[in-house]
């Protein structure tokens, strides 16, 4: 499984993520993927597309749900007003107007957006919910007693991406 393609310096890019404030491995992986896509699918175009705004729930929440503290806030991106479209050229995970930062008992919960405007979480990847708050509550429903979210982002970087070593370029060529 070689993720670094077309001569992309996988190791070098990943090293940038070793700082505590750096992008998560997940974001890095997406960045790599975007790079790979850009190489494979030239010419590179910055395609912006409308994403439906979050329905109800406003731009933040902070409550205790089933004994867990759940907090979320929509962080507007610098120099942008809510609802403004995003430049997707960097392949980053952003929603229109900003990015939701969500925690359960202080641990980050990653959300993903569907094209119909609904939300998925890392805990429940196959069901989508109307709002970030609903997706967060649903995640709480699935987290077992005594367990806490584990931020999947930080992991050993020195050995390269874990997906790199199992296979190779031997193709199927059926």
């Amino acid at each position, binding site marked *: 499984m070689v993720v670094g393609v077309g001569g992309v310096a996988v190791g070098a890019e990943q090293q940038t993520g070793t700082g505590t404030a750096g992008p998560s491995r997940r974001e890095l992986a997406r960045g790599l*993927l975007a790079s790979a896509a850009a190489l494979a699918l030239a010419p590179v175009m910055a395609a912006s597309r409308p994403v439906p705004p979050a329905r109800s729930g406003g731009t933040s929440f902070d409550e205790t749900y089933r004994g867990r503290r759940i907090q979320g806030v929509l962080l507007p991106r610098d120099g942008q007003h809510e609802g403004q479209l995003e430049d997707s050229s960097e392949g980053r995970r952003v929603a229109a107007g900003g990015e939701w930062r969500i925690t359960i008992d202080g641990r980050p919960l990653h959300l993903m957006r*569907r094209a119909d405007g609904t939300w998925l979480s890392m805990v429940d990847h196959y069901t989508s919910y109307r709002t970030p708050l609903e997706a967060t509550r649903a995640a709480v429903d699935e987290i077992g007693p005594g367990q806490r979210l*584990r931020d999947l982002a930080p992991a050993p970087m020195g050995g390269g991406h874990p997906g790199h070593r199992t296979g190779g370029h031997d193709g199927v060529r059926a």
Partner: protein
Amino acid sequence: MAYVRKDVSTLTASERRRFVDALLALKRRGEYDEFVRMHIDYYTADGEDGLRTAHMAPSFLPWHRRFLLELERALRRVDSSVTVPYWDWTRNRTTTSVPWTKDLLGGNGRRSDRRVMTGPFAYGAGHWAIKEGVTDGRFLTRDLGRSAAPLQLPTRGELQWALDDPVYDAWPWDSTVRKGFRNKLEGWGAGSGSASLKNHNRVHRWVGGVMLGGASVNDPVFWLHHAFLDLQWYRWQRAHRSHRYLPAEPPGVADAQHERVVARHQRLPPWDETPDQLEDVSRIYRYA
């Protein structure tokens, strides 16, 4: 010569043991967790930016076909007799039928914390600690049938509904498309709630626990589930011989899906193959 992938309910005791032992060997070597990580990294949703390969995209089927081949190659390096079996969830539908037996994947999670307590993948057996997990729980979890709000596995009829669609996929090639074999099989329905969960998605929900989350590969049933889906692709091809993987050509620059999906002759990251090359794997394996 092509090897054979079998219905898990037909495996002999020896075949079951060798399959389980090969999985445990990969886990012990750390290879298994690389597969877990890779599946996490390639999950890009369609409301976000970037190329979608594994989900919410036409390449859902070839991506997972190639992913399974990678796992199967690793298993066969351990034991060349092993192939990935498939779980026909239209036939084996209860929480105690195969593959939920002690000699295969073990049973349901216990009520208190959903921890799987039986079989070779139970934490207590000492061979299967989760490292790449969504939570800090180290044990495999399941909630077969979703105890809090029970739902059923997809039926034969629901699977047939997907197989009957002669078109592989349709614009906008994502989770919102209502026609086409691919999304009817992948299972993104309209709205939210159980009714929106079809085929592939519904099975992830039915198993629950780690199968529900981004790190679903931690439950080895992932492979049995996707082998069965892979078989459906083969069946669909045989039923609709004049139809092929779509899109045949990359969406143009004016298309909202430009650079968001993999067309038939484009490379499917992270591999060097294209969907075109993965459509026919009959020289590598076949289904019993």
